[in-house]
């Protein structure tokens, strides 16, 4: 955006950028530094020795996969229905769903709590998976509907003339052509489900089901507030997320810009 033909302006831009980025880097440096102070790598050994870390990761993975599967399946079906099929009163259905987009999850706490206890899903993965999926679907349907809409009608008409029914069209046209969108849905849902804190806090009460976002609180009580070990546990929790991002950098960025790019 800036013209950088002269060397001096190039240097200035680079310096400005570097100064601006430092505040984003410092907390990460502080985290690593803290995790290595005191007993050094011993902090990591102590955290690992509790043996709970893999369990928390497994729980987060199960919940994330569950949410992703539900969100992906229901979103694809609904996006096809909304974009290309005949639905009487379609906009009413669509807007009723879209209103849920604005819903803060904390509003669901009390009814979810009583329902979950009645249904016996309290302290199970379902108590977190179902509300997370329900709150994610409106946004992914909004994105995917406009994506499916941009597929030319002629393609659908031609398939129908050739005798393909809606299910076949869905399988052979919609699913393959929405693959870029699928990646975006998976990443968006993954970040949302993996990083969620409130629902696990309320609905998951034993380490056997708790997620990685509850690890810091677990270690705060486990090591009676020994900051260095808490920091080590934060690094252990953050590293897989950072690695996942670095490996799938383009997908992460595309996932978040899915709403902004045609």
């Amino acid at each position: 955006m800036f013209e950088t033909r002269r060397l001096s302006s190039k240097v200035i831009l680079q310096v400005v950028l570097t100064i601006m980025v430092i505040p984003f880097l410092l907390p990460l440096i502080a985290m690593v530094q803290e995790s290595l102070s005191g007993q050094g790598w011993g902090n990591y050994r102590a955290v690992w020795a509790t043996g709970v870390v893999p369990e928390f990761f497994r729980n987060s993975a199960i919940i994330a996969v569950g949410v992703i599967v539900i969100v992906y399946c229901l979103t694809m079906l609904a996006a096809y229905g909304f974009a290309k099929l005949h639905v009487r009163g379609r906009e009413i259905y669509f807007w009723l769903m879209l209103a849920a987009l604005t819903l803060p999850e904390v509003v669901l706490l009390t009814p979810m709590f009583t329902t979950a206890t009645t249904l016996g899903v309290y302290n199970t993965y379902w108590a977190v998976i179902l509300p997370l999926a329900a709150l994610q679907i409106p946004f992914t349907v909004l994105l995917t509907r406009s994506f499916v809409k941009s597929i030319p009608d002629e393609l659908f008409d031609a398939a129908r003339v050739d005798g393909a029914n809606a299910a076949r069209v869905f399988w052979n046209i919609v699913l393959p052509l929405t693959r870029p969108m699928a990646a975006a849905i998976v990443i968006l849902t993954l970040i949302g489900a993996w990083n969620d804190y409130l629902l696990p806090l309320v609905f998951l009460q034993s380490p056997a089901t708790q997620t990685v976002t509850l690890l810091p609180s677990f270690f705060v009580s486990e090591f009676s507030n020994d900051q260095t070990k808490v920091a080590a546990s934060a690094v252990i929790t953050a590293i897989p997320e950072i690695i996942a991002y670095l490996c799938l950098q383009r997908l992460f960025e595309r996932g978040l810009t899915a709403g902004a790019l045609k």
Partner: protein
Amino acid sequence: MSNAASGTTVSLTRQPGAAAGHAAPKGRRRGLRPPSGLPWILPAFVFVVGLVYYCIVDTAYISTLNWDGVSPTPQSVGFANYTQLFHDPVFWDSIRHTVYFFVVTFAVQTAVGFTFAALLHSKVKLPNLYKVIIFVPVVIAPATMAPIFRQIFSANGEFNSLLQNVGLGSLAHPWLAQSSTALPVIMAITVWEWTGVTFILYFAAMTQIDKEVLEAARLDGASGLTVLWRIVWPGVRGTTIALAMLSVIGALKTFDVPYLVPGNPGGPNYATEFLGTFIYRISIPTAEVGYGAAISIMLLILALAGAAAFGLRGTRRN
């Protein structure tokens, strides 16, 4: 498609030059009417609307009760919870904090995210390294970073040592323990966590700005800043509006950081109380479930109103 519908869809997806030419086809050729889509949308519709609307109706009902959440005989109190709410200073405090939080975080994220996007579109060295540093905070859970930030901003934390090292030691104090600075710290942490999203959206939007217009402006002698202000900034307006809407909803949803970072949730002295932490505290530790439900209903109304305000602005401009 109704006008209102296209308005909000577009406000999330509109890009320069892409606004027109997206009207839904009016009436298809006869004999090719598509099959019914109802069975296709029903699973998602029943799931989302069933769960969410059931919860809202239930919350509305609970908000008329005096109930601790477990007693088998809740007592109906009509609108007493709402009357109590309007006289509760903490409720008004949390609304004020939310507004203040929205204005500051949105302004800072927009300015910083936009600047980063413009700088990284300017052929600098190692662009990907900068991108990664800005974006990594987005993927780390706020709950994971919370104990780190609590340490950084504590009395003997890294932030105070940094101030001492640059000769501003007189400013050092326990940032989270003092009411006046606790909320700004919460905002700074949020900016750290979310600027990556703002940046990546602006970065994507800027790739769609017409290069020839930029080149023409430069040939006419416009400086870098003029181009940025006169062409790029208006060109990404759709993104700015979408981000404003996301920030409003995000501010109303704020929970993790003010719950986890201060010494006690929403503290000190309610200085970082938000609607989310307020509802949580009233509903769960205090077990005044009816009162918590009344606050939830107010939060819901504010969220819908906030989203509608920005959605409608998008429609009008269209």
